[in-house]
């Protein structure tokens, strides 16, 4: 079969957004009378943490996994990032990994285990293999599935019941999302990155601002980003409450995809590109909400609190709870300052850190590592600061080593690790000790996220690098003369 024929439902002729087009092209059954639509899922990514109970559910009900050829699994959350040739020391982690291996074997699911060349964080592996493409639907039992929206895919995180549902039916019953345009126009200053854009978006609309929406990132500043940068932005859509974020596919997308192992080839490629080119939001299509961000004005961003919306420019001071009119926000700020052990009015650049974490599905791709390495090249890390660099996948690690980045990182005094989720959530031994403060390129600064009692400041790879050099929260522009 060479073409997608039009689904047997009515095709709207009114201008549509990118999200609406992808949705319409995956309608299996249109919901009537307030019932959800039934949406087809093109790609199901699986990892060890949210899948065991779903496989169990299939077994109990005697149901097969409908499409193993649209399913792929990797080990990432529990896996150690050193000594990966030895058995996993933590018994419960080892059991969970072994459970995934047994389930993959039993149901015939393709699995990339620790030590495999394709192993890595699930959201790094999918794009790298060329499985993530424009115009497809992607799900995973992981809220950062929104990452894949960078390709113009509809990609969102699901719970374990839904994981089982997709395994059994390759579909999900869903109500259509509302649409929100995030317009980012202008040119980023030197030292300002995709990470700073998304932290600014979340600070602007809040952790609940995107609830019920799919975000479409648009505008000249988004078009100018590489795929790695777009993935960083879409990754954190969930931190604004949105299940999905998307960027319309363009030549940057096609160039990234072409030649990857699972990308279409020959006539299929031409047909795919022709289709992908039709996906961009139509002129005149309307969004349910719109937000505008001036890229020219953005500075390196940092979070000061315990949710990702609690962020400011790095050149600012720690805000005072009195600045917040909303009583809930004020109370949350008070709690956050107490947890973070910060005093209102302190310049953020005077805040010292104990650790720097460079990694996670937000910022662990090759360009992130290059950016980090470009700042630390030839320098030494600050005394007493622990710096951990964790590539997103085994392939990224190999690529970095081929470019000599590992040498720059180890000469700097940082730890060069194997791939995984690592200290983003500390399910493996990579954790902060109670009270330790970390500048982290990850996505969540929740209480205890990186280890019980740990304190997290979310930053870009460039800020992480400058902070590792100076020992206090810093941007590369603070390094002159050092």
């Amino acid at each position, binding site marked *: 079969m060479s073409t997608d024929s039009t689904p047997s439902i009515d095709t709207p002729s009114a201008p549509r957004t990118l999200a609406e087009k992808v949705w319409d092209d995956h309608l*299996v*059954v249109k919901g009537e009378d307030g019932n959800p639509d039934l949406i087809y899922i093109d790609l199901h990514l699986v990892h060890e943490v949210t899948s065991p109970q779903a496989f169990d559910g299939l077994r109990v009900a005697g149901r097969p996994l409908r499409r193993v050829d649209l399913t792929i699994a990797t080990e990432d959350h529990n896996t150690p990032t050193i000594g990966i040739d030895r058995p996993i020391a933590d018994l419960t982690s080892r059991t969970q990994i072994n459970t995934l291996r047994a389930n993959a074997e039993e149901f015939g699911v393709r699995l990339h285990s620790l030590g495999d060349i394709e192993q890595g964080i699930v959201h790094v592996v999918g794009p790298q293999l060329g499985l993530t493409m424009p115009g497809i639907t992607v799900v995973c039992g992981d809220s950062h599935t929104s990452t894949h929206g960078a390709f113009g895919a509809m990609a969102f995180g699901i719970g374990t019941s839904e994981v089982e549902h997709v395994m059994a039916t390759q579909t999900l019953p869903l109500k259509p999302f509302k649409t929100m345009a995030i317009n980012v126009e202008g040119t980023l200053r030197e030292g300002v990155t995709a990470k700073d854009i998304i932290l600014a978006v979340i600070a602007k609309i809040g952790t609940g601002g995107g609830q019920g929406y799919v975000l479409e990132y648009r505008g000249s500043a988004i078009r100018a980003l590489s795929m790695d940068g777009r993935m960083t932005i879409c990754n954190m859509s969930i931190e604004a409450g949105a299940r999905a974020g998307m960027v319309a596919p363009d030549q940057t997308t096609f160039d990234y995809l072409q030649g990857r192992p699972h990308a279409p080839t020959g006539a299929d490629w031409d047909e795919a590109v022709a289709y992908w080119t039709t996906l961009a939001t139509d002129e005149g299509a309307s969004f349910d909400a719109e937000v505008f961000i001036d890229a020219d004005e953005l500075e390196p961003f940092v979070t000061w609190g315990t949710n990702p919306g609690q962020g400011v420019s790095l050149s600012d001071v720690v805000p005072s709870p009195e600045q917040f009119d909303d009583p809930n926000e004020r109370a949350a700020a008070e709690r956050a300052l107490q947890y973070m052990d910060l005093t209102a009015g302190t310049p953020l650049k005077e805040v010292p850190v104990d650790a720097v974490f460079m990694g996670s599905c937000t910022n662990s791709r090759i360009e992130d590592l290059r950016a980090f390495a470009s700042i630390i090249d030839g320098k030494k890390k600050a005394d007493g600061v622990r710096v951990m660099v964790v590539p997103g996948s085994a392939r990224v690690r190999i690529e970095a080593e081929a470019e000599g980045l590992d040498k720059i990182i180890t000469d700097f005094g940082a730890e060069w690790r194997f791939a995984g989720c690592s200290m983003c959530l500390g399910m493996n031994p990579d954790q902060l000790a109670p009270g330790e403060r970390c500048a982290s390129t990850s996505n969540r600064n929740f209480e205890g996220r990186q280890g019980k009692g740990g304190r997290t400041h979310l930053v870009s790879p460039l800020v992480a690098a400058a902070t590792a050099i100076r020992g206090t929260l810093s941007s590369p522009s603070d390094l002159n003369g050092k």
Partner: protein
Amino acid sequence: MEKFTTVTGIAAPLRRSNVDTDQIIPAQFLKRVTKTGFEDALFYGWRQDPDFILNQQPYLGARVLVAGPDFGTGSSREHAVWALRDFGFSVVVSPRFGDIFRGNSGKQGLLTAQVPEEDVERIWRAIEQQPGVEMTVDLVERQLSIGELRLAFEIDDYTRWRLLEGLDDIALTLRNEEAITAFESRRAAWRPTTLPAR
């Protein structure tokens, strides 16, 4: 799933906003491969503080949790729902829920009742004036009753219907087997397949 119509039980006030799922259940408890037995993991970090509300009687036996806005944000972990359920909760009341959490709840028979922020404040005050007061949550009428208060709550029609009927989503979807197969027969060749591995 059991049918859900009405629940009556002690309501516990959680005066916090932005209760993310990392707080509801920290990552260390996600290593288990079972679906039950998460009651001790619920709010594990906060429960280290003896003054935390769910360490206080009468709230150890609470069935309704009343929280501030943006409850259940962040990670998709369905373990958050399992932990609330295992502790004994049947209902969470909040002005706003994380999308994934709300979806997960509906599939596990945990009712997410959405009420305006000012109503949450009224409920908190009612509980604090009379700790241990019971709340009745009537899904048929979409109404909460506590003391003298009678408050409407929101839940979407589809989730309500599924909860009332105790329906299994997968069985419902599989009624559309023919439509799914027909859709698959139209799927373009360029769309991704994971096998054979390349």
